[in-house]
Protein backbone atom coordinates (compact mmCIF):
# COMPACT_ATOMS: atom_id res chain seq x y z
CA UNK A 1 0.00 0.00 0.00
CA UNK A 2 1.34 3.44 -0.96
CA UNK A 3 1.95 6.15 1.59
CA UNK A 4 -0.61 8.42 -0.08
CA UNK A 5 -3.27 5.75 0.19
CA UNK A 6 -2.57 5.37 3.90
CA UNK A 7 -2.84 9.14 4.43
CA UNK A 8 -6.11 9.29 2.58
CA UNK A 9 -7.56 6.35 4.50
CA UNK A 10 -6.63 7.88 7.86
CA UNK A 11 -8.02 11.20 6.79
CA UNK A 12 -11.30 9.66 5.67
CA UNK A 13 -11.55 7.57 8.81
CA UNK A 14 -11.02 10.45 11.23
CA UNK A 15 -13.34 12.77 9.35
CA UNK A 16 -16.01 10.05 9.33
CA UNK A 17 -16.31 9.94 5.58
CA UNK A 18 -15.98 6.18 5.29
CA UNK A 19 -18.82 3.88 4.51
CA UNK A 20 -19.60 0.96 6.83
CA UNK A 21 -17.82 -1.65 4.73
CA UNK A 22 -14.85 0.59 4.12
CA UNK A 23 -14.52 1.27 7.84
CA UNK A 24 -14.50 -2.44 8.69
CA UNK A 25 -11.85 -3.02 6.06
CA UNK A 26 -9.75 -0.13 7.51
CA UNK A 27 -9.96 -1.51 11.08
CA UNK A 28 -8.97 -4.96 9.86
CA UNK A 29 -5.97 -3.47 8.04
CA UNK A 30 -4.83 -1.61 11.17
CA UNK A 31 -3.96 -4.92 12.78
CA UNK A 32 -1.73 -5.97 9.91
CA UNK A 33 -0.13 -2.65 8.86
CA UNK A 34 1.97 -1.06 11.66
CA UNK A 35 2.76 1.99 9.52
CA UNK A 36 -0.93 2.70 9.10
CA UNK A 37 -1.35 2.51 12.87
CA UNK A 38 1.54 4.97 13.36
CA UNK A 39 -0.05 7.44 10.97
CA UNK A 40 -3.39 7.13 12.70
CA UNK A 41 -1.90 7.78 16.14
CA UNK A 42 0.09 10.78 14.88
CA UNK A 43 -2.97 12.24 13.24
CA UNK A 44 -5.01 11.82 16.41
CA UNK A 45 -2.32 13.56 18.41
CA UNK A 46 -2.17 16.44 15.93
CA UNK A 47 -5.90 16.95 16.07
CA UNK A 48 -6.06 16.90 19.83
CA UNK A 49 -3.13 19.33 20.09
CA UNK A 50 -4.68 21.76 17.63
CA UNK A 51 -8.00 21.52 19.46
CA UNK A 52 -6.31 22.31 22.76
CA UNK A 53 -4.48 25.22 21.17
CA UNK A 54 -7.76 26.49 19.75
CA UNK A 55 -9.46 26.36 23.13
CA UNK A 56 -6.59 28.29 24.71
CA UNK A 57 -6.81 31.15 22.22
CA UNK A 58 -7.83 34.50 23.65
CA UNK A 59 -11.15 36.17 23.07
CA UNK A 60 -11.06 39.38 21.12
CA UNK A 61 -10.71 42.37 23.39
CA UNK A 62 -13.59 44.62 24.34
CA UNK A 63 -11.54 47.59 23.25
CA UNK A 64 -11.44 46.29 19.69
CA UNK A 65 -15.21 45.97 19.62
CA UNK A 66 -15.58 49.44 21.09
CA UNK A 67 -13.30 50.94 18.43
CA UNK A 68 -15.22 49.37 15.56
CA UNK A 69 -18.60 50.38 16.96
CA UNK A 70 -17.30 53.91 17.49
CA UNK A 71 -16.35 54.02 13.84
CA UNK A 72 -19.86 52.82 13.02
CA UNK A 73 -21.32 55.63 15.10
CA UNK A 74 -19.26 58.22 13.28
CA UNK A 75 -20.61 57.22 9.88
CA UNK A 76 -22.75 59.88 8.19
CA UNK A 77 -26.40 58.88 7.94
CA UNK A 78 -27.75 57.56 4.69
CA UNK A 79 -29.83 60.31 3.04
CA UNK A 80 -32.61 58.10 1.71
CA UNK A 81 -33.31 54.57 0.60
CA UNK A 82 -34.11 55.85 -2.86
CA UNK A 83 -30.71 57.46 -3.03
CA UNK A 84 -29.00 54.23 -2.05
CA UNK A 85 -30.95 52.41 -4.74
CA UNK A 86 -29.88 54.91 -7.33
CA UNK A 87 -26.24 54.28 -6.52
CA UNK A 88 -26.59 50.59 -7.15
CA UNK A 89 -26.71 49.30 -3.61
CA UNK A 90 -30.45 48.63 -3.42
CA UNK A 91 -32.79 46.25 -5.09
CA UNK A 92 -35.24 46.81 -7.89
CA UNK A 93 -37.94 48.15 -5.61
CA UNK A 94 -35.74 50.89 -4.27
CA UNK A 95 -34.71 51.79 -7.80
CA UNK A 96 -38.36 52.03 -8.76
CA UNK A 97 -39.10 54.14 -5.68
CA UNK A 98 -36.28 56.48 -6.61
CA UNK A 99 -37.66 56.90 -10.11
CA UNK A 100 -41.19 57.56 -8.85
CA UNK A 101 -39.92 60.10 -6.33
CA UNK A 102 -37.98 61.92 -9.02
CA UNK A 103 -41.08 61.93 -11.26
CA UNK A 104 -43.22 63.39 -8.49
CA UNK A 105 -40.69 66.12 -7.79
CA UNK A 106 -40.50 67.06 -11.47
CA UNK A 107 -44.31 67.07 -11.77
CA UNK A 108 -44.75 69.28 -8.69
CA UNK A 109 -42.09 71.68 -9.96
CA UNK A 110 -43.83 71.83 -13.34
CA UNK A 111 -47.21 72.54 -11.76
CA UNK A 112 -45.62 75.22 -9.62
CA UNK A 113 -44.14 76.91 -12.68
CA UNK A 114 -47.47 76.83 -14.54
CA UNK A 115 -49.45 78.16 -11.55
CA UNK A 116 -46.86 80.83 -10.93
CA UNK A 117 -47.04 81.85 -14.57
CA UNK A 118 -50.84 82.13 -14.37
CA UNK A 119 -50.64 84.37 -11.31
CA UNK A 120 -48.08 86.61 -12.95
CA UNK A 121 -50.11 86.93 -16.12
CA UNK A 122 -53.27 87.70 -14.12
CA UNK A 123 -51.44 90.38 -12.16
CA UNK A 124 -50.20 91.93 -15.35
CA UNK A 125 -53.62 91.83 -17.06
CA UNK A 126 -55.65 93.35 -14.23
CA UNK A 127 -53.25 96.07 -13.21
CA UNK A 128 -53.77 99.66 -14.14
CA UNK A 129 -51.16 100.87 -16.64
CA UNK A 130 -49.43 102.95 -14.01
CA UNK A 131 -49.04 99.95 -11.69
CA UNK A 132 -47.52 97.56 -14.20
CA UNK A 133 -43.90 98.49 -13.78
CA UNK A 134 -44.13 97.93 -10.06
CA UNK A 135 -45.87 94.57 -10.53
CA UNK A 136 -43.17 93.45 -12.86
CA UNK A 137 -40.57 94.55 -10.44
CA UNK A 138 -42.30 92.68 -7.64
CA UNK A 139 -43.00 89.49 -9.49
CA UNK A 140 -39.59 89.06 -11.05
CA UNK A 141 -37.63 87.81 -8.06
CA UNK A 142 -40.40 85.73 -6.52
CA UNK A 143 -40.02 81.97 -6.88
CA UNK A 144 -43.07 80.72 -8.71
CA UNK A 145 -43.29 77.47 -6.77
CA UNK A 146 -43.85 79.16 -3.42
CA UNK A 147 -47.47 79.21 -2.22
CA UNK A 148 -49.12 82.56 -1.96
CA UNK A 149 -50.87 83.20 1.35
CA UNK A 150 -54.31 84.74 1.49
CA UNK A 151 -54.51 88.36 2.65
CA UNK A 152 -55.07 88.56 6.38
CA UNK A 153 -56.97 91.14 8.38
CA UNK A 154 -53.74 92.82 9.48
CA UNK A 155 -52.78 93.49 5.92
CA UNK A 156 -56.22 94.92 5.19
CA UNK A 157 -55.95 97.24 8.18
CA UNK A 158 -52.62 98.57 7.03
CA UNK A 159 -53.68 99.39 3.49
CA UNK A 160 -53.04 102.99 2.46
CA UNK A 161 -55.93 105.19 1.31
CA UNK A 162 -56.51 105.63 -2.43
CA UNK A 163 -55.05 109.15 -2.82
CA UNK A 164 -51.87 108.06 -1.15
CA UNK A 165 -51.62 105.10 -3.51
CA UNK A 166 -51.91 107.42 -6.49
CA UNK A 167 -49.20 109.61 -5.05
CA UNK A 168 -47.05 106.56 -4.48
CA UNK A 169 -47.54 105.44 -8.05
CA UNK A 170 -46.50 108.85 -9.29
CA UNK A 171 -43.43 108.77 -7.16
CA UNK A 172 -42.58 105.35 -8.47
CA UNK A 173 -42.82 106.59 -12.03
CA UNK A 174 -40.58 109.52 -11.16
CA UNK A 175 -38.02 107.19 -9.66
CA UNK A 176 -38.23 104.89 -12.65
CA UNK A 177 -37.61 107.81 -14.98
CA UNK A 178 -34.51 108.75 -13.00
CA UNK A 179 -33.30 105.12 -13.34
CA UNK A 180 -33.49 104.46 -9.67
CA UNK A 181 -35.84 101.50 -10.20
CA UNK A 182 -34.80 100.47 -13.67
CA UNK A 183 -32.92 97.43 -12.36
CA UNK A 184 -33.78 95.05 -9.53
CA UNK A 185 -32.36 96.02 -6.19
CA UNK A 186 -30.88 92.58 -5.79
CA UNK A 187 -28.69 93.03 -8.82
CA UNK A 188 -27.56 96.58 -7.92
CA UNK A 189 -28.13 97.10 -4.23
CA UNK A 190 -27.94 100.56 -2.79
CA UNK A 191 -25.60 101.12 0.08
CA UNK A 192 -27.08 100.17 3.42
CA UNK A 193 -30.23 98.63 2.01
CA UNK A 194 -30.07 95.47 -0.05
CA UNK A 195 -26.67 94.63 1.34
CA UNK A 196 -28.20 94.14 4.76
CA UNK A 197 -31.82 93.14 4.33
CA UNK A 198 -32.16 91.90 7.89
CA UNK A 199 -31.06 95.27 9.23
CA UNK A 200 -33.70 97.01 7.14
CA UNK A 201 -36.35 94.69 8.59
CA UNK A 202 -35.38 95.73 12.04
CA UNK A 203 -35.77 99.35 11.12
CA UNK A 204 -39.32 99.03 9.79
CA UNK A 205 -40.90 95.79 10.97
CA UNK A 206 -44.54 96.93 11.03
CA UNK A 207 -44.86 98.14 7.47
CA UNK A 208 -45.54 94.76 5.94
CA UNK A 209 -47.99 95.24 3.04
CA UNK A 210 -46.95 97.09 -0.05
CA UNK A 211 -49.25 99.92 -0.97
CA UNK A 212 -49.18 99.56 -4.76
CA UNK A 213 -50.14 95.88 -4.47
CA UNK A 214 -53.05 96.34 -2.12
CA UNK A 215 -55.61 95.62 -4.84
CA UNK A 216 -53.76 92.64 -6.22
CA UNK A 217 -55.31 89.18 -6.06
CA UNK A 218 -51.94 87.76 -5.05
CA UNK A 219 -50.75 89.81 -2.13
CA UNK A 220 -47.13 89.83 -1.10
CA UNK A 221 -46.30 87.35 1.59
CA UNK A 222 -45.04 88.46 5.00
CA UNK A 223 -41.53 89.80 4.73
CA UNK A 224 -39.84 87.05 6.72
CA UNK A 225 -40.49 84.34 4.13
CA UNK A 226 -38.08 85.14 1.32
CA UNK A 227 -35.35 87.62 0.63
CA UNK A 228 -36.35 88.78 -2.90
CA UNK A 229 -39.86 89.78 -1.76
CA UNK A 230 -38.33 91.65 1.15
CA UNK A 231 -36.19 93.63 -1.25
CA UNK A 232 -39.22 94.88 -3.16
CA UNK A 233 -41.04 95.59 0.06
CA UNK A 234 -38.20 97.74 1.38
CA UNK A 235 -38.18 99.82 -1.75
CA UNK A 236 -41.87 100.68 -1.42
CA UNK A 237 -41.55 101.44 2.27
CA UNK A 238 -39.04 104.16 1.59
CA UNK A 239 -41.45 105.66 -0.92
CA UNK A 240 -44.11 105.86 1.77
CA UNK A 241 -41.69 107.62 4.07
CA UNK A 242 -41.07 110.22 1.44
CA UNK A 243 -44.80 110.66 1.08
CA UNK A 244 -45.12 111.23 4.78
CA UNK A 245 -42.36 113.83 4.69
CA UNK A 246 -44.27 115.74 1.95
CA UNK A 247 -47.95 115.49 2.82
Amino acid at each position, binding site marked *: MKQMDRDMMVERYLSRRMGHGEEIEFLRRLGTDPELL*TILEAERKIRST*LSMDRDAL*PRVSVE*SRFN*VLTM*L*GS*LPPVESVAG*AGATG*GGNGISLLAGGVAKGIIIAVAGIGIVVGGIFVSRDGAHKAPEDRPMVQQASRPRPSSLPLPAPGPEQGQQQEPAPQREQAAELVREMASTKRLSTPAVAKPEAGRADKPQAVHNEAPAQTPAAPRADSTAPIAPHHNAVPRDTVHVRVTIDMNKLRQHP
Partner: protein
Amino acid sequence: MSQYSLTALRPIDPTSENTEHAHSPAGGDMLLLERFQNGEDAAFVELFDRHHQRLFIYCLKMVGEREQAEDLTQELWERVLRLRASPQKILNPVGFFLKIARNLSINHLKARRHHVPLTSLPEGLHPAEREGGRSELEERILTSLELLSFEHREVLILNIYCGYRMEEIAVMLGKSPEAIWKRASRARTQLRRMVTKG
Protein backbone atom coordinates in the same frame (compact mmCIF):
# COMPACT_ATOMS: atom_id res chain seq x y z
CA MET B 1 -48.99 28.17 -16.88
CA SER B 2 -47.89 27.48 -13.34
CA GLN B 3 -45.66 24.55 -12.48
CA TYR B 4 -46.31 22.09 -9.67
CA SER B 5 -43.99 19.82 -7.79
CA LEU B 6 -44.91 16.16 -8.04
CA THR B 7 -44.60 15.38 -4.38
CA ALA B 8 -46.82 17.95 -2.75
CA LEU B 9 -48.75 19.49 -5.62
CA ARG B 10 -47.87 22.94 -4.47
CA PRO B 11 -47.12 25.76 -6.88
CA ILE B 12 -43.41 26.15 -7.33
CA ASP B 13 -42.24 29.56 -6.33
CA PRO B 14 -39.70 30.68 -8.92
CA THR B 15 -37.95 32.72 -6.24
CA SER B 16 -37.80 29.83 -3.79
CA GLU B 17 -34.08 29.40 -4.40
CA ASN B 18 -33.50 32.99 -3.44
CA THR B 19 -35.73 32.61 -0.40
CA GLU B 20 -33.82 29.56 0.75
CA HIS B 21 -30.59 31.39 0.11
CA ALA B 22 -31.83 34.32 2.17
CA HIS B 23 -32.53 32.02 5.12
CA SER B 24 -29.17 30.27 4.90
CA PRO B 25 -26.30 31.70 6.96
CA ALA B 26 -24.64 33.17 3.87
CA GLY B 27 -27.94 34.58 2.65
CA GLY B 28 -28.63 36.04 6.09
CA ASP B 29 -25.24 37.70 6.01
CA MET B 30 -26.01 39.07 2.58
CA LEU B 31 -29.27 40.60 3.78
CA LEU B 32 -27.55 42.02 6.84
CA LEU B 33 -24.87 43.61 4.71
CA GLU B 34 -27.49 45.05 2.39
CA ARG B 35 -29.46 46.44 5.32
CA PHE B 36 -26.29 48.00 6.70
CA GLN B 37 -25.56 49.64 3.38
CA ASN B 38 -29.09 51.02 3.41
CA GLY B 39 -28.39 52.75 6.70
CA GLU B 40 -29.26 50.19 9.39
CA ASP B 41 -26.50 50.19 11.98
CA ALA B 42 -27.98 47.27 13.92
CA ALA B 43 -27.42 45.02 10.92
CA PHE B 44 -23.73 45.81 11.00
CA VAL B 45 -23.55 45.05 14.72
CA GLU B 46 -25.14 41.65 14.09
CA LEU B 47 -22.69 40.90 11.29
CA PHE B 48 -19.85 42.01 13.51
CA ASP B 49 -20.92 39.80 16.41
CA ARG B 50 -21.32 36.82 14.11
CA HIS B 51 -17.88 36.93 12.56
CA HIS B 52 -15.57 39.10 14.59
CA GLN B 53 -14.15 36.43 16.86
CA ARG B 54 -13.55 33.93 14.07
CA LEU B 55 -11.90 36.53 11.86
CA PHE B 56 -9.75 37.61 14.76
CA ILE B 57 -8.68 34.01 15.33
CA TYR B 58 -7.91 33.67 11.64
CA CYS B 59 -5.71 36.77 11.71
CA LEU B 60 -4.12 35.70 14.98
CA LYS B 61 -3.14 32.29 13.66
CA MET B 62 -1.97 33.70 10.35
CA VAL B 63 0.23 36.49 11.74
CA GLY B 64 0.93 35.03 15.18
CA GLU B 65 0.66 38.26 17.18
CA ARG B 66 -2.37 39.24 19.15
CA GLU B 67 -1.99 43.01 18.86
CA GLN B 68 -1.38 42.82 15.15
CA ALA B 69 -4.35 40.49 14.75
CA GLU B 70 -6.60 42.96 16.53
CA ASP B 71 -5.33 45.79 14.36
CA LEU B 72 -5.89 43.78 11.22
CA THR B 73 -9.40 42.78 12.27
CA GLN B 74 -10.19 46.39 13.05
CA GLU B 75 -8.85 47.43 9.66
CA LEU B 76 -11.05 44.76 8.10
CA TRP B 77 -14.21 46.15 9.69
CA GLU B 78 -13.17 49.65 8.76
CA ARG B 79 -13.15 48.56 5.15
CA VAL B 80 -16.57 46.98 5.56
CA LEU B 81 -17.86 50.23 7.02
CA ARG B 82 -16.68 52.06 3.92
CA LEU B 83 -19.21 50.05 1.94
CA ARG B 84 -21.92 52.42 3.11
CA ALA B 85 -20.30 55.29 1.23
CA SER B 86 -19.93 53.19 -1.92
CA PRO B 87 -22.49 50.36 -1.73
CA GLN B 88 -21.83 47.08 -3.50
CA LYS B 89 -23.85 43.95 -4.04
CA ILE B 90 -21.88 41.26 -2.22
CA LEU B 91 -23.24 37.75 -2.61
CA ASN B 92 -20.74 36.06 -0.30
CA PRO B 93 -20.09 38.37 2.65
CA VAL B 94 -18.02 35.88 4.68
CA GLY B 95 -15.86 35.20 1.65
CA PHE B 96 -15.55 38.94 1.22
CA PHE B 97 -14.49 39.37 4.86
CA LEU B 98 -12.06 36.48 4.60
CA LYS B 99 -10.56 37.91 1.44
CA ILE B 100 -9.88 41.19 3.22
CA ALA B 101 -8.46 39.39 6.26
CA ARG B 102 -6.30 37.26 4.03
CA ASN B 103 -4.91 40.21 2.06
CA LEU B 104 -4.22 42.14 5.24
CA SER B 105 -2.48 39.14 6.77
CA ILE B 106 -0.36 38.55 3.69
CA ASN B 107 0.62 42.21 3.53
CA HIS B 108 1.54 42.14 7.18
CA LEU B 109 3.61 38.99 6.79
CA LYS B 110 5.40 40.43 3.78
CA ALA B 111 6.19 43.63 5.63
CA ARG B 112 7.40 41.68 8.63
CA ARG B 113 9.51 39.42 6.49
CA HIS B 114 11.17 42.41 4.86
CA HIS B 115 11.65 44.58 7.89
CA VAL B 116 11.72 42.39 10.99
CA PRO B 117 14.06 39.40 11.01
CA LEU B 118 13.13 36.48 13.22
CA THR B 119 16.12 37.09 15.47
CA SER B 120 14.89 40.56 16.36
CA LEU B 121 11.51 39.35 17.60
CA PRO B 122 10.79 39.91 21.29
CA GLU B 123 11.41 36.91 23.48
CA GLY B 124 7.75 36.11 24.00
CA LEU B 125 7.08 36.05 20.28
CA HIS B 126 9.93 33.79 19.31
CA PRO B 127 8.57 30.37 18.34
CA ALA B 128 11.26 28.56 20.33
CA GLU B 129 10.45 30.40 23.52
CA ARG B 130 6.70 30.30 23.64
CA GLU B 131 4.68 29.47 26.68
CA GLY B 132 5.47 26.29 28.54
CA GLY B 133 3.13 23.57 29.77
CA ARG B 134 3.19 21.74 26.47
CA SER B 135 4.98 18.55 25.68
CA GLU B 136 7.76 18.50 23.15
CA LEU B 137 5.50 16.77 20.64
CA GLU B 138 2.81 19.39 21.05
CA GLU B 139 5.32 22.18 20.55
CA ARG B 140 6.58 20.42 17.47
CA ILE B 141 3.08 20.12 16.08
CA LEU B 142 2.33 23.82 16.58
CA THR B 143 5.67 24.88 15.12
CA SER B 144 5.13 22.60 12.14
CA LEU B 145 1.74 24.18 11.54
CA GLU B 146 3.43 27.54 11.12
CA LEU B 147 5.87 26.06 8.64
CA LEU B 148 3.15 24.88 6.31
CA SER B 149 2.49 26.80 3.12
CA PHE B 150 0.02 29.67 3.44
CA GLU B 151 -2.81 27.89 1.62
CA HIS B 152 -2.47 24.65 3.56
CA ARG B 153 -2.24 26.43 6.87
CA GLU B 154 -5.21 28.57 5.97
CA VAL B 155 -7.48 25.60 5.36
CA LEU B 156 -6.53 23.96 8.65
CA ILE B 157 -6.98 27.19 10.58
CA LEU B 158 -10.36 27.90 9.03
CA ASN B 159 -11.48 24.35 9.74
CA ILE B 160 -9.98 23.58 13.13
CA TYR B 161 -9.58 26.98 14.74
CA CYS B 162 -12.38 29.03 13.21
CA GLY B 163 -14.84 26.15 13.06
CA TYR B 164 -15.93 26.50 9.44
CA ARG B 165 -16.99 23.33 7.68
CA MET B 166 -15.13 22.34 4.51
CA GLU B 167 -18.17 23.19 2.40
CA GLU B 168 -18.27 26.67 3.91
CA ILE B 169 -14.56 27.13 3.33
CA ALA B 170 -15.06 26.09 -0.28
CA VAL B 171 -17.70 28.81 -0.73
CA MET B 172 -15.55 31.37 1.05
CA LEU B 173 -12.51 30.64 -1.06
CA GLY B 174 -14.46 30.20 -4.27
CA LYS B 175 -13.34 26.58 -4.75
CA SER B 176 -15.17 23.31 -5.07
CA PRO B 177 -15.66 21.26 -1.87
CA GLU B 178 -13.57 18.46 -3.36
CA ALA B 179 -10.66 20.81 -3.97
CA ILE B 180 -10.84 22.02 -0.39
CA TRP B 181 -11.02 18.48 0.93
CA LYS B 182 -7.93 17.61 -1.09
CA ARG B 183 -6.09 20.69 0.10
CA ALA B 184 -6.95 19.93 3.73
CA SER B 185 -5.88 16.33 3.30
CA ARG B 186 -2.53 17.36 1.85
CA ALA B 187 -2.04 19.87 4.64
CA ARG B 188 -2.65 17.22 7.29
CA THR B 189 -0.37 14.81 5.56
CA GLN B 190 2.42 17.35 5.35
CA LEU B 191 1.94 18.31 8.97
CA ARG B 192 1.98 14.70 10.07
CA ARG B 193 5.13 14.00 8.13
CA MET B 194 6.85 17.03 9.59
CA VAL B 195 5.87 15.94 13.07
CA THR B 196 6.86 12.29 12.68
CA LYS B 197 10.16 13.17 10.96
CA GLY B 198 11.15 15.65 13.65
